[in-house]
């Protein structure tokens, strides 16, 4: 299903391909020619590329509808070549629900940051997950509000200094970070939840596998799939990109352990419904057969 690699249009007049040469790596077709507006060293760009590669490899660009969030990736409707809808802050899962209900045969994904997904949109996130909406959610957790200039996020770490926690996040007063993958994994609706990072080549490879699987699950009707990408924000963390990766490894990964939090297929079920029914095996009403 992979598309033949061709140079993106903006490179075609700059790079000459000689006879006998072939392109082994190029910008994914699902990414537009628009130059990213992300800060240097930001991991949004990597994740955008991984999403686009997954879409390319599954051959689903023409059938995919994406939902953009509010936050640093707010303008990713310009970066993806598939149809896109810009949602209000936090509402992407609800918008995705509306789209998927109208077009159950299409692939619908939401791309959201931590403020969007885990603060203002917590209700939409949790309920789209528990409904088992057949959508794919890509969650960028960089422990800070980037777009607005570095305020405390629902995922900011204890004692993390931000613009709105200038003395460090005081958990005795403002509470604790939310581990969304763990929280959502308690629900019956999701089919697949994995937390990945993109600080090293190995982690990026794993992130790619997870993101592709999250789309593939939707193609196969397995159910709601959620990939959390532990990410960096060098600008608002006040670090160089390399130092930010170090900080991520040192502080974020111990708090947000990488790994698979739910995978109903790996557990031997066809889909989330099957796994949920098994979990409620002792509840008679939950076992009632429904008419189609």
């Amino acid at each position, binding site marked *: 299903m992979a598309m033949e690699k061709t140079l993106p249009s903006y490179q075609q007049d700059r790079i000459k391909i000689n006879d006998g040469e072939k392109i082994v790596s190029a910008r994914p077709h699902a990414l*537009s020619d628009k130059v990213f507006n992300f800060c240097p060293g930001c991991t949004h760009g990597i994740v955008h590329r991984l999403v686009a590669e997954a879409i390319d490899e599954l051959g689903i*660009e*023409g*059938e*995919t*509808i994406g*939902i*953009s969030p509010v936050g640093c990736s*707010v*303008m990713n*409707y*310009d970066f*993806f*070549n*598939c*149809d*896109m*809808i*810009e*949602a*209000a802050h936090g*509402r992407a899962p*609800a*918008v*995705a*629900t*509306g*789209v998927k*209900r*109208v*077009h159950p045969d*299409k692939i619908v994904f939401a791309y959201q940051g931590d403020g969007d997904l885990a603060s203002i949109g917590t*209700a*939409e996130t*949790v*309920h789209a997950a528990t409904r088992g909406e057949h959508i794919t959610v890509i969650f960028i957790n960089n422990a800070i509000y980037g777009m607005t200039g570095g305020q405390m996020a629902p995922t900011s770490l204890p004692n993390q200094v931000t613009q709105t926690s200038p003395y460090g996040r005081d958990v005795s007063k403002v509470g604790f970070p939310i581990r969304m993958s763990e929280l959502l994994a308690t629900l019956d609706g999701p089919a697949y939840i994995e937390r990945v990072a993109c600080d090293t080549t190995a982690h990026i490879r794993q992130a790619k596998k997870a993101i592709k699987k999250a789309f593939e699950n939707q193609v196969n009707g397995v159910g709601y799939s959620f990939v959390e990408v532990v990410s960096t924000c060098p600008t608002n963390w006040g670090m160089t990109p390399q130092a930010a990766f170090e900080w991520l490894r040192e502080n974020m990964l111990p708090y947000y352990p990488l790994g698979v939090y739910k995978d109903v297929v790996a557990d031997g079920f066809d889909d989330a419904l099957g796994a949920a029914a098994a979990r409620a095996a002792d509840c008679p009403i939950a076992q009632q057969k429904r008419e189609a």
Partner: protein
Amino acid sequence: MADEKSTPVEDRVLMKGNEVLAEAAMRAGCRYFFGYPITPQTELAAYMAKKLPKIGGTFLQAESEIAAINMVYGAGAAGARAMTSSSSPGVSLKGEGVSYMAGADVPGVIVNVERGGPGLGGIQPSQSDYFQATRAMGHGDFFMPVLAPSTVQEMADLIYLAFDLADEYRTPAMILADGMIGQMMEPVTLPPARDPESLPKKPWATTGTHMEREHNVVNSLYLTPQKLEDTNRERFERYEKIKATQQRQELFMADDADILIVAFGASSRIARTAIRRARDKGIKVGLLRPITLWPFPEDAINQAIDGGCKALMSVELNMGQMVEDVRLAAHGRADVSFYGRTGGVLPTPEEILDQIEALAARIGCAPSAKAGE
């Protein structure tokens, strides 16, 4: 609008207002309903929950009013006719989503079966959301068509129209009803059922590119000020077209009226009784019933004033909201006054009659004053 004579008998039925909204919406081609429970619109959602799955549609009870309107936004952006319904406190939560729909030019229908407010208010009929409905109900510079049914028949006719207006002008549209019209039963001729496939196509919708066209983007974000201004100006040109072509009202005993009662929805029904009684007493009073609250029927008000109407009295189930539009339309050319009850209290015809008599006396149009001319 349904033609009574040509409609089969089975389409003339006795139904509750809220259920008629649901049935007529489905007949208009709506297959997607997203909502959250609230009194007094409950029957609408219950009817949809029962019927929509049987015709291949989707009824989804959302986790909140906010989620529900954003589902409507998504479904509308994906090209479908979609709706949500609620009552006053719940409609407040929809303001955000409606603003995004207006900003991204996404059609959809919002029903508000009003109850008393502010805050949790009460559950009895009210018209206290007139401002919210007719001014931008969320942030930003926008309007939307607002239709106000006064009978169960109009519940059917106007929601049918609302879907057409929403699609034609790429805008959200609202049905502003109240708990009285929602809860009452009347005979109704249902409009013909339309196949959603037969509706005009929406080439702008996000339906997947199928690798055959540039990607569609449904969006309300414009970081370049000039672009945002251009977008808003284009939208207001559409609003001007709506104002020029879509003002709707009913006139009753208005031809020779010195006084016009301006009233919509439930209060217009009570006003009609009061007007008949005032006519029996020789007062030349009539009714101007706005059917579109936005665009407000200012042309009809101006024509009435041109035709000799001296005074306009706005009768509302609130503390005086539509009266501001009446005053703007009259522009100082007629006496404008207000009478209202609020909190779910309905005025009696006698109360309104008293107001009419007092007004007639004040402006010198009472029968006795006339006789003395």
